[in-house]
């Protein structure tokens, strides 16, 4: 193999690939990335056997070939040599790199030992644009569980039916759901699957502005294909909780408030939260306001009144302030709507007049 390209292009691709290598010490080949130049172009691949990524790099191919090199070595090397043109060449199992100033040899492995990528088999396909996917995933992923004890809760749920993609996640304390309606989409059969949250984190980093993303799903894996990358992840085996039944339909109290107001007040109150992160939120229709209260035995007490058009009953409940902040930040609307039934029942947060996103959070015990 002999290729010539700009280091800037190569470096970006190697950084992406490096994130998908394994920290597994038993099989060193999993810590490496695979460089391949053939008639389809220059490609870099990496996998940790859970996720896999293939990135295309633009450049000139003088000789085709294939080689695996340790990811850490090559990424650290490329990060420090400037953005000029470089030439990469295989010499047996070594990679020889040459720029105007440098000549380097990196020890590699035979490509024979590199894992083979699973072929897409009998898959369902649909497409959407990267801003849609990015917004959908990032607004929901915040609610997924970080613990692996319940794999279905450490995953993002997708349900594709007719022209709607529903994306949801929950860690059993809160729940986020986003609906994306696509004109082009025509899913005859209901398709639902669970993508591990780590894979979603990775795909979010991969997505760039204004691309068309094709998604292919079968029983075991999902492939996201962008213009110059492919990302494969296994799917979580399991069943997502039947979450729609826990979303209340009627409420005893409702309040609409300006997003920037409530956000800055929660952050302010956050300085004084107690050890359990509890913030008391009171919906007060008489005062036309939401009252915020926090106190910490060592730091001090704080209360504030945020003007809001509150209706219904007078209800106060305690919440983890970080959970509130997570949800409100995801709302893309000037006004935020709060809906609640009692101090023991979930608080529903959504943008005013926006049915596409909702965030549901359970209160804390005792007010």
């Amino acid at each position, binding site marked *: 193999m002999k290729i010539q390209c700009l280091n800037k292009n190569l470096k970006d691709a190697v950084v992406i690939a490096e994130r998908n290598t394994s920290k*597994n010490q*038993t*099989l*060193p080949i*999993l810590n490496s990335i695979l460089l391949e130049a053939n008639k389809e172009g220059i490609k870099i691949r990496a*996998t940790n*056997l*859970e996720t*896999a990524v293939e990135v295309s790099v633009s450049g000139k191919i003088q000789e085709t070939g294939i080689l695996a090199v340790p990811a850490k070595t090559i990424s650290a090397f490329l990060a420090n040599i400037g953005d000029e043109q470089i030439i990469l060449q295989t010499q047996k199992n070594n990679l020889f790199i040459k720029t105007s100033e440098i000549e380097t040899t990196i020890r590699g492995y035979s490509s024979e030992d590199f*894992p*083979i*990528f*699973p*072929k897409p088999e009998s898959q369902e396909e649909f497409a959407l644009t990267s801003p849609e996917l990015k917004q959908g995933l990032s607004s929901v992923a915040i609610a997924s569980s970080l*613990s*692996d*004890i319940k794999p*279905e809760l450490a995953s993002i749920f997708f349900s594709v*039916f*007719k022209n709607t993609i529903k994306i949801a996640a*929950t860690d*059993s*304390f809160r*729940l986020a759901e986003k609906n994306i309606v696509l004109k082009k989409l025509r899913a005859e*059969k*209901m398709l639902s699957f669970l993508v591990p949250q780590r894979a979603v984190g990775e795909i979010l980093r991969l997505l760039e502005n204004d691309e068309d993303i094709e998604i292919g799903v079968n*029983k*075991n*894996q999902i492939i996201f294909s962008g213009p110059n990358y492919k990302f*494969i992840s*296994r799917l979580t*085996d*399991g*069943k*997502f*909780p*039947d*979450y729609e*039944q*826990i979303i209340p339909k009627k409420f005893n109290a409702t309040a609409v408030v300006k997003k920037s107001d409530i956000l800055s007040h929660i952050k302010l109150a956050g300085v004084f939260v107690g050890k*359990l992160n*509890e913030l008391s939120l009171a919906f007060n229709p008489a005062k036309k306001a939401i009252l915020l209260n926090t106190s910490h035995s060592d730091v001090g007490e704080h209360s504030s009144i945020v003007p809001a058009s509150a209706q219904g009953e007078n209800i106060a409940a305690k919440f*983890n302030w970080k959970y509130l902040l997570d949800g409100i930040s995801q709302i893309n609307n000037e006004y935020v709507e709060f809906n609640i039934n009692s101090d*023991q029942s*979930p608080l529903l947060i959504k943008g005013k007049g926006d049915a596409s996103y909702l965030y*549901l959070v*359970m*209160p*804390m*015990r*005792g007010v």
Partner: protein
Amino acid sequence: MTNEELWSRALTEIELAVSRANFVTWFKDTRILNFAEGTVTVGVPNGFSKEWLENKFHKFILKSLRTQAPEIRAINYSIATPSTTAAAKIKFKKEPPPLQEEQLEFKDFYVDPRTNLNPKYTLDTFIVGSFNELAHAAAQAVIKNLGRVYNPLFIYGGVGLGKTHLLQAIGNAVCKENPGKKVNYITSEKFSNELVSSLQNNYVHNFKEKYREFDLLIVDDVQFFAGKTKTQEEFFYTFNALYEAGKQVVFSSDRSPKSISDIGERLQSRMEAGVIIDISEPEYESRLAILKAKILEKKIDLPETTIELMALLIHKNIRELEGALNTINIQSKYQNRVLTQDEVKIILSKNIKPKNAVTPTQIIKTVAEFYDIQEKAIYEHTRKTEVVKPRQVAMYLIREDLKGSYPFIGQKFGGMDHTTAIHAYEKILRELKSDAKLEDELKSIRNKYQNLQK
């Protein structure tokens, strides 16, 4: 040689031939899924292992397997998640992080999404007394011989007597003993909601298939099928499909199949085809045992006398018993002392509906409404059968529930003789022993006037 033995012998051979790292990476969590007619299907944990075994180790695996079983011709590889036992082991190792006790969770998430069963209901926590021992025995028989005895099993009884507990315990026990069995618990209401939404969204087909593949289908509160013709019809087909395939079905209801009004005859007779068992109200000793079990489970500290008093005062409903226990517990925690007997009585009296608040006139009115006759007809001296029976029932109820004297009853019914009242009371008492329908009628009449007071 079982599949496990075959695979482990083949693995020992493969282990010698490949490097340790390769072996650990690629052969972890593999197993033989199926071995028939010379073809072995090997289950692998992910797509990468599948490709690798197929492309790199295929000859190796074939050779090693054939030295053990020469008849093997071909090997397929298929992605399968590691068996449940292996997965369960991993789960045990990782202790859940200390839960933030203060943060509330979505309640419904405790329920296993595959089966809709709540793991807290088990047979171990089910307290057996004379009031429910038959139901318990039937449940155990069903668990041991799924689909072969007592199919369908129909359990009925009033609210809060443990029907749901028993039903879910059956499901949980079956899941535990045969992890491969597909079990599903559903309330009749949810069944009909699902049907409606599948009709709306045009995937009735999926809906039908879904319910026909279960080995055990548990349907709670079937009385709510009443009046829903389309749901009944769909359920009827599902039931038939399951029944013919020898799959177990378990029902519960608050009354016997005969007395569920507005339910199709076909479905009704299907429900009666197996065995019908009722759960009645617990007697004092059972109530005491239930309270003690709850106290142990919730780690509540209450004196023996208080518990006995509660068991004595609350008769009918186990759920009420639990509620009262919680109330007493919170009260004594809040006041930080042991409550006296009188205080307990006062608290309980607020929770239990007073027994004798219903008036004879109310009973007569309810009875008249139930049998669809004019209220004043009951007071008339007539021997029309359609009036005589309701009148006798009303007399019986006044005697039984209000402890009214015979002369008082006679007087109440337009100056009849007290012997008429005695006759009526004894007649109904006699008929109750032989006529299950009458018993159900009385139960629903009682329900009606008891609900009037709430």
